[in-house]
């Protein structure tokens, strides 16, 4: 089965990548066991480089019989071919395609307690030719227990669990109309086609008070309709009209129907005492009171400032800027 390698961007990067591979192999668990523990020493020489990279030794736990695990690997766009084992020799060719093509061959010779390998690669990187020789010496130093299979299985299980969680999150987001999850860069982008129909469905139920209240409580209907180019104002107007028609004053007075509150409040609240009025009309009159008394919150928190009035905060900032060295 072909192995996939990653081509280097620059020759120096190739060197770094090779060592990175060795480093990652060294992370494998090394508790005593049925697998083989190796000391792998790698050395890189490249024509044209003023000095060779120093050899580096890493301890590697390899599943018994998995010779390829001892071969330095890259990723993407590189393919091993003609891999064969004859007696105590393991040989192979490597060819990398793409922006910086290169090719070469490798040969590993095994003994009873180790191996020697070399890999020659030629190619171009950013238009410059390179010729690289990598030598690898492996020495079996004991036994160990490789965790590669268990790690892969665990990773696969985590990926599957993650996919399941994303699917559930998308399902819930469709119920709550969380449009952010369905943005082109969101986790549910591949299901975007489902979103606006779901919004339309909720919008249809929100045209009467109970549906409107539930939608406002449980979903992001207003923003979602905006994202889908739908008119939330029309839905609100329909629900409010229905609220007035059915004298659902608790709904009409809930803060979404202030235009209707003004009209209905004039008829049902104005000039009346809260202690004497019918209890059903109190929510309407409470909201009506807020429309005819006091300044609204936005005005109160951001009261208009006369054009030439000094801003006390800015004055403080300016004073500090003049006096302090920062």
């Amino acid at each position, binding site marked *: 089965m072909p192995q996939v390698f990653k081509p280097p961007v620059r020759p120096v990067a190739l060197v770094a990548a090779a060592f990175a591979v060795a480093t990652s192999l060294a992370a494998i668990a090394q508790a005593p066991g049925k697998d083989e523990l190796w000391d792998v020493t790698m050395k890189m020489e490249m024509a044209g480089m003023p000095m060779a990279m120093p050899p580096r030794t890493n301890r590697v736990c390899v599943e018994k019989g998995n010779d390829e695990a001892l071969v330095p690997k890259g990723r993407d766009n590189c393919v091993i071919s003609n891999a064969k084992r004859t007696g105590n020799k393991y040989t192979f060719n490597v060819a990398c395609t793409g922006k910086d093509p290169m090719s070469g061959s490798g040969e590993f010779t095994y003994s009873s307690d180790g191996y020697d390998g070399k890999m020659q690669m030629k190619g171009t990187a950013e238009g410059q030719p390179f010729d690289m020789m990598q030598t690898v010496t492996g020495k079996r130093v004991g036994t160990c227990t490789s965790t590669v299979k268990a790690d892969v299985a665990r990773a696969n299980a985590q990926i599957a669990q993650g996919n399941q969680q994303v699917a559930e999150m998308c399902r819930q987001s469709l119920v709550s109309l969380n449009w952010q999850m369905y943005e082109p860069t969101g986790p549910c982008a591949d299901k975007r086609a489902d979103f606006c129909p779901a919004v339309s469905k909720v919008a249809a139920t929100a045209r009467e008070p109970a549906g409107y209240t539930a939608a406002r409580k449980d979903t992001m209907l207003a923003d979602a309709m905006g994202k889908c180019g739908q008119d939330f104002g029309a839905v609100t107007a329909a629900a409010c009209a229905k609220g007035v028609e059915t004298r659902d004053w*608790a709904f009409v007075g*809930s*803060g979404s129907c202030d235009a209707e509150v003004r009209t209905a409040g004039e008829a049902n609240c104005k000039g009346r*005492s*809260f*202690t004497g009025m019918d*209890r059903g009309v*109190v*929510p309407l*009159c*409470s*909201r009506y*009171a*807020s429309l*005819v*008394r*006091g*300044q*609204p*919150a*936005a*005005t*109160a*928190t951001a*009261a208009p400032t006369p054009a030439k009035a000094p801003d*006390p*905060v800015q*004055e*403080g*900032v300016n*004073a*500090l800027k*003049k*006096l*302090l060295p920062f």
Partner: protein
Amino acid sequence: MSDRATRAAFAFALFVAAFAVRAAPTDSFPGAAAAYLVTVDGVPAFAAHPERPLPPASLAKLMTALLVAEAAVGDAIVTIGPGAAAETGTRLGLRAGERVRASDLLAAMLVASANDACRALADWLAGSEREFVARMNARAAALGLADTVFRNACGHDAPGMHSSARDLSALADRVLAQPQLAGLAALEQRTLRTLGGRTFRVRTTNAFVGRIPGVTGLKTGYTARAGTCLVLTAEREGVRVIVVLLGARERWWDAAAMLEHGFDFANARPPR
């Protein structure tokens, strides 16, 4: 300190003060009351004279209720004394010598503002109203209610008896933290019975309890000197608004407007 350092300190103080000015609550309801305060999740949103000392009327019963709740008296039996039986104003009509559960008296005091129930609890818990008032003032001091002095347990007008909208708002917060009191404050009505078998049906004096969504209480008050007073509390979608009105012009109309503006204020806040 060098001249430069002095000027820097002054500039910094100006900077801090500028923020303090900007964060101060606004008077969005001019002339609505002798003093008022609207807090949203504990933050003052609207106010006029929130620290002005004024007679609290029956809002004083909030402290009485707090002390009773904190004493955890449960279903203890209280014998009505002559002082309680002689109470004036709003009352159940309890008779001296009658025996009533403390929890029923607490309900009558909070729901219907019954002065005889209030006085009975004070006398019973501390031995005398005088001693109970001393406890009320000690608790007020412990809570940092700097504008508050009690002269009686139930809020009758009395020289030197005063509180402020700010203090009463803080006190309301404490009262709501007591589950027993929070439960009683939200009742529209309750039936209670003396151990001798007399029954009383009390109705809330709060025109909004059970009528405006989210309203949780809390206490009304009126005396000739204090005028109409109110501590109104409400909670919607996790936001708590407390309205305190002292000497209100049109108590219910302004309280309703303040409540709704309080929730609008919360909705206008940037998300945290």
